[in-house]
C-alpha cells in the first residue's frame, strides 16, 4: 500500500507536495510575486487540484498552426483562489430550447446520417457527480459540413440538421444526447489535413475554475494519429479519454448505436492551506 501511494506521488504530485515543485522553471516568476515567500499567500479558500503534468495542452502547439499567433508569450500569472474563482454561473433546465437534447428532432424532417446516442457522466477529479450543470454540444452534419457561413467545404448542408444541443446533468451527473454521427472534414492546417469525426463539448461545472471546452472523438477513427488538435496533449492516457466508447447498454435496438463519453471536471483540493 505504501508503495502504491509513493507511486501516486511520483507520477502526479499529490496535494501534499507544494505545487511549485512540479511546475517548470519558466513559470517560477509568477510564484516569486507572492511577496518573495516560498509558498503562495495563505489562502483560506480550498483551491483546485493541480493539473497533472502532460494531461492538458500547452497554449502554444506549433503543429496546430492557429495557436502560433494566438497563444500568450508571457508566463501565466499564478494567483490563489478567491471567492471569485470558486463561484460560477448556473443554468436551469427551463432555459433550454425545445428538443435541446435530441438533435434529430429540431426540424420538420429527420436529418440524414447514422443516428447515435451520446451519453455519459460528468464527475469531478475526486469522483463526485457534477449534477445540474449545463452541457452544450455542437458538430458537423453527417457529410462533414457545419451550418456556418465560413465553412466552405464542398459537402451538402442538411436542412433538417443544425448540429447544436444542450442538456443539464441529473443528480448523478448523467447527460444524454440523440444526434447524428458527424462526418470527417478537411481543413487548411497542413497539406491534406482532415479532422477526425468529433463533437464539441462545453461544460461549466460549479465554478469559474471548472469551466471546460473539449471534443469527443470516435473509437477506431483512422485520422486520430494525424490530428494536431487531438494530439496536442502529451499524455497518451489523457488523449484516450477523449475517445468515446461504443456502449451496448445505451444502444437502442433498431434505433441507434450508443457511445459513452464521461467527462472529468476539476476537483477541489481537499487540503486547503492553513489560514
Amino acid at each position, binding site marked *: 500500500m505504501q508503495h502504491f501511494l509513493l507511486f501516486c506521488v511520483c507520477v*502526479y504530485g499529490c496535494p501534499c507536495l507544494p505545487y511549485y515543485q512540479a511546475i517548470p522553471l519558466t513559470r517560477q516568476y*509568477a510564484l516569486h*510575486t507572492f511577496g518573495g515567500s516560498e509558498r503562495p*499567500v*495563505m489562502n*483560506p479558500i480550498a483551491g*483546485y*487540484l*493541480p*493539473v497533472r503534468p502532460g*494531461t*492538458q*495542452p*500547452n*497554449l502554444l*502547439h506549433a503543429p*496546430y498552426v492557429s*495557436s*502560433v*499567433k*494566438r497563444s*500568450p*508569450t*508571457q508566463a*501565466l*500569472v*499564478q*494567483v490563489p483562489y*478567491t471567492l471569485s474563482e470558486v*463561484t460560477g*454561473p*448556473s443554468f436551469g433546465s427551463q432555459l433550454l430550447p425545445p428538443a435541446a437534447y435530441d438533435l434529430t428532432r429540431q426540424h420538420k424532417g429527420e436529418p440524414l446520417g447514422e443516428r447515435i446516442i451520446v451519453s455519459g457522466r460528468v464527475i469531478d477529479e475526486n469522483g463526485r457527480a457534477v449534477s445540474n450543470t449545463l452541457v452544450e454540444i*455542437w458538430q*458537423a452534419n453527417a457529410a462533414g459540413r457545419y451550418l*456556418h457561413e*465560413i*465553412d466552405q467545404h464542398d459537402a451538402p448542408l442538411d436542412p433538417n440538421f443544425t448540429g*447544436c444541443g*444542450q442538456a443539464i446533468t441529473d443528480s448523478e451527473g448523467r447527460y444524454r444526447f440523440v444526434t447524428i454521427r458527424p462526418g470527417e472534414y478537411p481543413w487548411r492546417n497542413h497539406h491534406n489535413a482532415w479532422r477526425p469525426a468529433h463533437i*464539441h463539448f*462545453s461544460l461549466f461545472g460549479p465554478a*469559474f475554475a471548472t*469551466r*471546460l*471546452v*473539449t471534443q469527443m472523438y470516435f473509437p477506431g477513427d483512422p485520422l486520430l494519429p494525424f490530428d494536431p*488538435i487531438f494530439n496536442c*496533449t502529451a*499524455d497518451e*492516457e*489523457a*488523449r484516450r*479519454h*477523449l475517445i468515446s466508447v461504443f456502449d451496448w447498454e445505451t444502444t437502442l435496438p433498431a434505433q441507434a448505436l450508443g457511445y459513452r463519453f464521461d*467527462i*472529468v*471536471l*476539476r*476537483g477541489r483540493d481537499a487540503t486547503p492551506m492553513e*489560514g
Partner: protein
Amino acid sequence: MTLPATTSQTVGPFFRIGLQWLYCDNLVPESIAGERVVVRGQVLDGDGIGVPDAVIEVWQANSFGKYAHPADKQEKPLEPAFRGYGRIPTDDQGTFRFTTIKPGPVPGLDGKEQAPHLLISIFMRGLLKRLTTRMYFPNDARNAADPILNLVAPQRRPTLMAKHAADSLEWNVVLQGTDETVFFDMGL
C-alpha cells in the same frame, strides 16, 4: 487516488453554432441595482489583427458584492434576476461590447477586500484551452490594495485596467507583444 481532469480542446472556428443561444450583450435586467457600464474592446492577435472568431465570457458579483452562487455565504442582498454571467462574441473586426453593472467589492484573502472586478474567460480558434483574466475599473481607490493586482508585476497591471472612453469603458485583450494582457493560471 483521483482522476485527471478531461483534456481541454479548442472551440474551433464554428463554435457559434453551439454557443450563440446564450449570447447576450446586456447582463442586467432593468430591475437590477448598480451603476451601468458599457465595456468595449478588441481581441488582438500576435500581428495586431482583430480576432473575428473569439468569444468572451464574464462572471461577476452584483453591485452589493454578492455572487449568485451557494458558496457565497455573505449577508449581502442577492438579486435573483441577475445571473452575473455574460457570453459575448467578437465581430468581424475582433471587437466586442457589453453592458453590465459595476460589481461591488468581494472578499479576498486574509479578510481583505478585492477591488471591483470582472472575471473573464476567452475562447477562440487557435486556443487549445481558454485564457482567463480580470478586468478592473479605472479610478477606483480600492485597486491599490487589491490582493490579486498586487501579485502582478507593476508594469503589466495596466493591461487589467479598463480605461475611460467617451461613453464607455475600453478594455482590450492583447494576446501577444509588448502590451500583452496578463492571463492567470487557472489550471485549465
